[in-house]
């Protein structure tokens, strides 16, 4: 896994974006950018250069699930790894995210260890396939 990869953090709460950014920095990932909902994130992603997307679900305008679906529908972005970090805890929603092609799903509140574990798992899998 390349520690220099560019990561987009999408959450409508700036506090949560800071927390995730801090945790990523502790894990050695310093190349991050932020967006406050799907509708601002999508143009950034389409602009190119991102290697990993971490997104919340419950956001104004464009929610995380819609962002995930839009990413999977875009030929340029369809294989971008996506980790969902959200308070949404309904089984139906987790299944929906899985069917939409999410790579990992973390329920809030979460720990630094969980974040590390899920990121490791996502990239181990991608490297194994690659």
């Amino acid at each position, binding site marked *: 896994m390349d520690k220099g990869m560019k990561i987009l953090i999408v959450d409508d709460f700036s506090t*949560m974006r800071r927390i995730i950014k801090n945790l990523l920095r502790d894990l050695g990932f310093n190349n991050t950018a932020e967006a406050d909902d799907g509708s601002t994130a999508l143009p950034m992603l389409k602009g190119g250069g991102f290697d990993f997307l971490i997104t919340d679900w419950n956001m104004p305008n464009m929610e995380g699930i819609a962002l995930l679906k839009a990413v999977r529908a875009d030929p340029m972005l369809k294989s971008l790894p996506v980790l969902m970090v959200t308070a949404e805890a309904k089984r139906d929603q987790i299944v929906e995210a899985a069917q939409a092609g999410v790579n990992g799903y973390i329920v809030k*509140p979460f720990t630094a260890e969980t974040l590390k574990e899920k990121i490791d798992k996502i990239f181990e899998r991608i490297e194994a396939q690659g």
Partner: protein
Amino acid sequence: MDTDEERLNLHLDLARQLVECLEKGQRSEADDIIRQLRLPYERELFEELGKLTRELHEALKSFRGDARLIELSRDEIPDAKERLNYVVSMTEQATHRTLNALDESMPIAESLHGRSGVLREQWNRFRHRELSVDEFRELARELDDFLIQTGQETERLKSLMSEILMAQDYQDLTGQIIRRVIRLVQEVEENLVGLIRLSSARMDLPRVDKAVVAEGGDSMDSRGHGPIVPNTQDMVADVVSSQDDVDALLSSLGF
């Protein structure tokens, strides 16, 4: 015009007959004429009464038919209270978590600060060749000790700072819950305005946009709901209770 005139003539005729009957003392004929005179006014009254009854009936029917209003008062208002209580306890917990970490950090920082001050003094004496061999040996031992302590204690400080960092997640979680309650309050307000409009339809109040009133319900399951709050309708839904549950569900889906 013609009919008005006819009616006037008819009334005049009846009135003359009435006076005649009364003068002749014909009571029952007089009563008959009075009834004939009253008839058109009664019809108007009944029509008006009928209209009022119909309106009242319609109002009651649409009121009863508004299931959303019932849902609001039965489930969502009590739930909103629970949600806000949950926010209070979450913020309380987060503050304690932060303060506990600070309580533990402060003495560590103070001890490192104090010990480094003492060592610095000894080190200065050493540099000015003021230490005896025994004193130097003591200093070397203390320095060694201090370096080990610093390594351990700064590690501990780092983990306490992560603890403080993670405690701040309450702002996102409670923020989502509060926003949900704000949406509910808005919906209740719009429903109340609708109710007032309904009960005083004849007063020609400004109309409320029904589409706005309907919004806010969680009918679409794809929509985000925010965190699950204990003791509310949230618990009725099929929800996971931990990251382990999520992992188990995903692995059952082949993840």
